[in-house]
């Protein structure tokens, strides 16, 4: 049914359609509206047979989900940013134990400096924690990915994190098709656990594992994620057959035929990039887009197949590893390792801490990639003059003060100068 609703509300309705039996809720911006929506659906009994548990922290949220999942319940939770960090130990436990929990991550920057706005630092902080990570381009895809996530998680008995851009998607009100329960039920059949804590048939889960077996357990986690590389396209095709929409899979391409420059991105920025590409194509620029849906597992082969033949691959991402560069760019580089005909990879870091990514800036930087390609990471719309002033200050003064406060003060000063002019 078509509705004009907030992304968070739509996500909550989609999760309810998957009939979770335990929801662990702890509020953190910008994810909060999702669990609030679910709380309401449980209260009104639109979501029946579900235990909605208000826990005392994010660590508890995922720990309770782990317990519930091990006891055979379909378990769900959601978080953002510092909340994900606070549950970090449990994040690894959920995947190491092979429990098919689904978690929404309302993507948000990580402090300090404290920042409530969107970027992908939180998802990247847990990229190696053994969870599958899927990124939604639109709120429609957020809805669709959650439905596919429960299926995928339970098929492999592995947890799935659905990444949804905070505010940009979670707080946007738009036209979203909410599927019918009758269609979702056959797509997400009742949970049949591969391991369950049952007093009638006691087992233990979470044994101490020494050097003799640890590698094998880890290898099997990796093996299962590789199976997802096959399952994700299968589920996406089955989803399309049932619901009539393209969503999920490993990656999607847009106007890639004959492209000499291919942009690679994850999440909601893909929409703005598509509009930019249409404008540049109209000007005769041979540019296309690869939208990565699955970051973990990383679709190395699928990506290589798409990229080989292009001259330039421009990776644009909302996160970076300080002292190293963009994580996605690094992963793309790895995917192209030892590959004949691989494009040059150029990295753009954009949208950090919620800075808008505009068509204008994208135009400029994509054109630059064609005429003046760069090495290393390019920070989109970096205020170079403020940075230079701060660096100068730091060189001159030993007790130079806190960086964030210094930058804020300089920004205020330059705004006042502009106002005075």
């Amino acid at each position, binding site marked *: 049914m078509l509705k*004009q609703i907030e992304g968070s509300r739509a996500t909550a309705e989609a999760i309810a359609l998957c009939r979770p039996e335990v929801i662990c809720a702890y509020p953190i911006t910008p994810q909060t509206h999702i669990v609030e929506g679910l709380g309401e659906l449980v209260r009104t009994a639109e979501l029946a047979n579900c235990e909605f548990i208000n826990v005392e922290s994010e660590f508890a949220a995922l720990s309770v989900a782990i317990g519930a999942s091990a006891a055979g319940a379909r378990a769900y939770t959601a978080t953002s940013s510092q909340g994900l960090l606070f549950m970090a130990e449990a994040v690894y436990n959920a995947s190491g134990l092979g429990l098919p929990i689904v978690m929404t991550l309302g993507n948000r920057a990580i402090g300090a400096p404290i920042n409530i706005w969107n970027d992908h630092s939180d998802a990247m902080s847990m990229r190696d924690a053994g969870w599958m990570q899927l990124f939604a381009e639109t709120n429609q895809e957020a809805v669709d990915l959650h439905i596919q996530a429960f299926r995928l998680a339970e098929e492999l008995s592995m947890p799935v994190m659905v990444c949804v851009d905070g505010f*940009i998607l979670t707080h946007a*009100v*738009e036209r979203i098709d909410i599927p019918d329960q009758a269609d979702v039920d056959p797509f997400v059949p009742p949970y049949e656990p591969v391991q369950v804590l049952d007093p009638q048939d006691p087992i233990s889960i979470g044994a101490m594992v020494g050097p003799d077996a640890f590698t094998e357990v880890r290898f099997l986690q990796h093996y299962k994620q590789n199976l997802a590389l096959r399952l994700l396209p299968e589920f996406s095709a089955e989803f399309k057959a049932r619901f009539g929409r393209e969503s999920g899979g490993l990656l999607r391409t847009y106007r890639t035929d004959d492209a000499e420059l291919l942009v690679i991105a994850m999440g909601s920025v893909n929409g*703005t990039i*598509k509009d930019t590409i249409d404008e540049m194509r109209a000007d005769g620029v041979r540019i296309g887009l690869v939208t990565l849906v699955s970051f973990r597992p990383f679709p190395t082969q699928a990506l290589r197949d798409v990229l080989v033949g292009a001259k330039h691959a421009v990776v644009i991402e909302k996160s970076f590893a300080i002292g190293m560069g963009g994580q996605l760019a690094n992963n793309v580089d790895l995917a192209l390792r030892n590959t004949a005909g691989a494009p040059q990879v150029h990295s753009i870091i954009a949208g950090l801490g919620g800075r808008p990514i*505009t068509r204008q800036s994208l135009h400029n930087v994509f054109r630059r990639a064609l005429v003046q390609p760069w090495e290393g990471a390019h920070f989109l719309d970096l205020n170079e003059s403020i940075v230079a002033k701060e660096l100068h200050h730091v060189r001159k003064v030993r007790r130079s003060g806190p960086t964030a406060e210094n930058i804020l003060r300089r920004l205020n000063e330059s705004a006042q100068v502009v106002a005075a002019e």
Partner: protein
Amino acid sequence: MLQVRIHGRGGQGVVTAAELLSVAAFLEGKHAQAFPSFGSERTGAPVVSFCRIDDKEIRLREPILGPDALIVQDPTLFKAIDVFQGLKPDGYLLVNTNKGLGQLHLLDVAARLPNGHACAVPASELASKHIGRPVPNAALLGAFAALTGIVHFHSVATAIRQQFPGKIGEANIVAATAAYEAIASQSAAA
């Protein structure tokens, strides 16, 4: 694509206004995208919300930089921020005030827009009278429908009724109707 930017202060229903406008457009079979400016929304602080309306899927996720229409819910904002940034030459301006545009020093801005594209409406006053609280957003949307024709008034009223069923919604529709009629009669006189 039509892009509407709404300026106001926390507590004036700025975000709700964009949402209601998007629902009105949705009811007319259009695609619409409403989103807030994502600040810390404190009461009284400047708040911006956005609404895009199109006949096809809206993919763009940048803030609205070049609006086709501006709704200003609080006339004290003109001193605080550059409300008019990016406003298109053929755009619309709707201001909530019980004064005239001249008293707010907006005649220059109005003169740069096509005739009849800038309007003042006492939305807070109408809201106080009909709702009992000076929340101007519904009244402004009624006036917006009359000024721009981007959405029909009937769709605005239906959107208000859907989002706020019951007495509050009905009172808001009365305020919106009064604002719609005020603008419609101005245009008829002009």
